């Protein structure tokens, strides 16, 4: 039963994606949309396959930049989140500042990074770093701050120290929140990288798309988009998988035993 349900869901999701591309293809054919305005998916795929060897170094560049920024962002976000979430005072004090930082449009920050570090990989790493801190901080802090006092009391009554309580209750309790934030952060990290690459870099998919746009090579622009989407989805799936392994206890609803 359950297996059938799951399969049905997956088939439906796949059908929707496929249907989207088929509709796109058909509409382009039907209305004779020129390639320079909106290339058909089949044309995009052709371009993608034909130019893949040239695109590959850029894919690697973008991917490594994103992952570096993401790793930095997650580390810093986790530490900040732990500090902010560990006490009510810290939570209330730090929150306005965090919200302020996160509401700055990141496009506006890239030129500053370029000013400081010159164009290239560094601003891209920093942009993706900055952009993915916030969701991690907020989620980790929320996870820690919303820990049920009853669970903490169990350890407190045993004479546990604050560090032991954090380690045995706070952190495991915050894990589902942390992983939820990772999924958001990894997609945002891509946004940050491509943003910076578009503005100030000579490598990476963002840069390729930038150059392709200026030379009206629209299929190549769309190839870049496709690549980004594929990378984003792949990393998202990887993190969902880890999440399910680590925090399965928090997502058991669909697998409750019938009895």
């Amino acid at each position, binding site marked *: 039963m359950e297996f059938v349900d799951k399969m049905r869901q997956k088939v439906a999701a796949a059908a929707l994606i496929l249907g989207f591309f088929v509709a796109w293809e058909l509409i382009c054919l039907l209305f004779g949309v020129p390639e320079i305005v909106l290339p058909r998916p089949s044309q995009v795929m052709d371009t993608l396959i034909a130019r893949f060897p040239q695109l590959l170094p850029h894919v690697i560049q973008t991917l490594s930049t994103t992952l570096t920024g993401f790793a930095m962002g997650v580390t810093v976000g986790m530490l900040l989140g732990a500090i902010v979430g560990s006490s009510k005072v810290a939570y209330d004090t730090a929150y306005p500042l965090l919200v302020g930082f996160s509401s700055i449009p990141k496009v506006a920050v890239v030129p500053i990074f370029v000013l400081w570090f010159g164009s290239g990989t560094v601003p891209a790493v920093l942009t993706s770093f900055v952009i993915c801190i916030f969701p991690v901080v907020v989620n980790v802090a929320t996870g820690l701050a919303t820990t*049920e006092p*009853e*669970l903490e*009391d*169990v*350890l*407190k*009554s*045993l*004479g*546990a120290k604050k560090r*032991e309580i954090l380690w*045995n*209750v706070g952190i*495991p*309790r915050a*894990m589902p929140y942390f992983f939820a934030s990772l999924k958001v952060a990894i997609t945002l990290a891509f946004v940050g990288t491509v943003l910076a690459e578009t503005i100030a870099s000579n490598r990476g998919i963002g840069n390729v798309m930038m150059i392709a746009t200026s030379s009206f090579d629209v299929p190549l622009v769309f190839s870049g988009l496709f690549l980004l989407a594929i990378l984003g989805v792949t990393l998202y799936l990887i993190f969902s998988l880890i999440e399910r392994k680590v*925090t399965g*206890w*928090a997502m*058991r609803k669909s697998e*409750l*035993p019938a009895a």
Partner: protein
Amino acid sequence: MLTMSVDTRQTAAAMDQQQDGQGREAIKLEGAEVIYGRGKKTTQALAPTDLKVEQGEFVALVGPSGCGKSTILKLVSDLLAPSSGNVHVGGREVGAKRVGVGMAFQNPTMLPWLSVRDNVMLPLKIVPPFRSRYRQARKGEFRDRAEALLEKVGLKGFGDKQPWQLSGGMLQRASLCRALIHDPELLLLDEPFGALDQFTREELWGILQNLWLESKPTVLLVTHDLREAAYLGTRICVMSPRPGKIIDDQRVHLPRPRTISMTYEQDFVQLTQQLRELITHTRPDAA
């Protein structure tokens, strides 16, 4: 052991106490008062209260809801500091000396990411002298210890389950195991059976009585079930409504081990009836 007549048990205990000079004191509250809030918006949760509990006693605290029964437990377990007065546990100021405390709450408060067995073994991870050996003994000695205890409460074979796979009554049994796994000198129970159906509750009374008879820790049980208090307690303290204080303190002279059928006998019924009257008379709306 369990069939041993209670009179001999009690005299034996009394003789021990005489040899010591007097029964050793496990808990002492002296004018302990708890006030929540600051400034004008204060609530007195517990009026200055005196209470002495000797080692090995099973004290049941009964009273209307909100009277500060749980507050007393929080004071003794060092989860809360008194606004004034003193709280001594094991002869010293609470918190000054590490006393083995086991605690069970109305909610089972199992950590959902651990298996039932790991939940039960949690105190061994925190409390000395067990904690230093936790890593080595986790899969051997401690595991067996947890399994043995789980078997005693009727949860044999459930150690590997996740908490959400167990019913409320089963979780409460596991919670009792967790409170007892480190052989605490002091067992603090905050309405542990409050959320259970009558049959499960009565079964657990029997289990708790057996566990207590085995190692005789000092127990402080908060409950508003008078039958529960009379069945389990060696002594019953009745509290007044908020701000609570102890208005009656009496020993229960029923033989052990007590049985459910005893709860329908005259002595027992008389006792619970008397307790009930004490509580209803002190209620502000009783007039």
